[in-house]
């Protein structure tokens, strides 16, 4: 037996049970003015930050960005733009021990299906943590904490690392359509060494 009549009501019939604050606000003229103000400011700020910088007066941009930061709406939709990265980036940390042996740490990689969701965080981290001269996406402040973290991971009873060296392994993609290989050979660039007492 059907427990209730199945309908898609076009009007709200909850009034008998008392309306929520938001619904009362939306029902009043003053409330709609208030919400409209919020909408104008929010949509305006989103539009301003997504418009080309030259087209927006500086004072407006200076107000819009902090507003979006404060509301959690800060945004920049430049994925793969203006050009996709053409450098294939890998990160390794070479850990040297007092007895001379060396181990290599790499960021974890999971299976493509579910592990891909976890990996996305590491892939983004690697983009920021490897050396990329002149690229604002490279954050050198991550080097020292990363090396210290790797050292802590590789410290075992009876064997302590004496140094951790961060190495960028990278290759450049070649333009599509060529007859030869599609990328340059991989090159290794050690770019930061942490010496441990």
């Amino acid at each position, binding site marked *: 037996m059907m427990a*209730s009549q199945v*309908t*898609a*009501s*076009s*009007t*709200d*019939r*909850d009034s008998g*049970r008392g309306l929520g604050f*938001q619904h009362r606000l*939306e029902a009043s003229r003053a409330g709609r003015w208030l*919400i*409209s103000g919020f*909408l104008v400011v*929010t*949509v305006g700020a989103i539009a301003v930050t*997504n418009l*080309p910088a030259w087209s927006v007066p500086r004072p407006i941009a200076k107000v819009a*960005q*902090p*507003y979006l*930061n404060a*509301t*959690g*709406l800060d*945004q*920049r*939709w*430049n*994925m793969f*733009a*203006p*050009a*996709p990265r*053409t450098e*294939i980036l*890998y990160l390794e940390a070479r850990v040297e021990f007092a007895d001379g042996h060396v181990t290599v740490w790499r960021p974890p990689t999971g299976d*493509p299906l579910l592990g*891909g*969701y*976890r*990996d*996305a*965080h*590491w*892939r*983004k*981290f*690697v983009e920021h*943590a490897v050396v990329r001269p002149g690229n604002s996406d490279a954050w050198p402040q*991550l080097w020292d*904490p*990363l090396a210290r973290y790797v050292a802590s991971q590789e410290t075992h009873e009876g064997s302590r690392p004496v140094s951790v060296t961060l190495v960028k392994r990278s290759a450049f*993609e070649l*333009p*599509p*359509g060529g007859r030869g290989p*599609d*990328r340059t050979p991989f090159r290794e660039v050690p770019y930061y060494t942490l010496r441990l007492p």
Partner: protein
Amino acid sequence: MKRVAAAWERFWFAPEPTSSLAIFRIVIGVICVGWALSLLPDFYVFFSSHGVEPVPPVHMPLGLWGVLNIFPSFTVAVALYLALLVASCCLTVGYRTRLASVVVFVAVVSFENRAPSIWNSGDGLLRIVCFFLMFAPAGAALSVDRWRTARDRFWEFPARAPWALRLVQIQVSVVYLSTVWFKLHGTDWLHGTAVSYAARLEDFQRYAMPSILSHSLLFSTVMTYWTLAIELMLGILVWNRAARPYVLALGAGMHLFISLSMRLGFFSETMVATYLTFLSPAAATAVVLAVRRRLNAAGARMRDPQWISALRPHREREWSEPA
């Protein structure tokens, strides 16, 4: 002036059944649960003082904030994580929906601003969607909240002002128009090589595209311009009622392709979820009611004693067979 005011009222405030919003809430809730779970394996690495970002950023741009920037202890991070997980489940089922959406938003913002090196555009989009969801009557239908307050009318979809949903729709449009604008400033997009470069980034690959395609200039050119065309259409034609279903289908196809070929986290999933806000309330209602009919039919079959008796001869035959 009066006509503009009337159009404004109609666009933002004319009440609409909350069926699309309810579906959108459920899907975003599931994505938030997945998002939280994806952080779990490396939670200590990313959010503790012994990890790869031991302290929150010192110089934050004006306005950015986060609970973990104020209270950077790992204990607070764990508590916030548990709150996020519980609140995401509550958002999915619509239990104390408003509170749940606020907790989810605060947690997402706090995690993203605590360790800014690990997020991509998909994480940013999820944060933005969560912000808008806080202002939507997301628990008005298909929710535990609805069950608790109006059980006899659970399958009704009360009409509400759709302004929060409209903000998500505008945001979708902005994402695509903005990304097309950025791309048109790069030579790879203009020369038709961008998709080939993106698809061959082996450190980002999920399932590698056959090299005969990814290294083909013809394939890359077609796909590059096709991508720009779809994104431009999504930014503009999504507002045209007749073109909308086709444009959204093209967008969903594009994001399926991106999701299969690259490890971009929840970017494609969140993007496609935002398309649900464009689903007409009538269509969303029809989908929900069709699902309900199927569930009812399946439930009736399960309760039907004939279903149990139908198994009996089979079992007896099975038992009577010689070993």
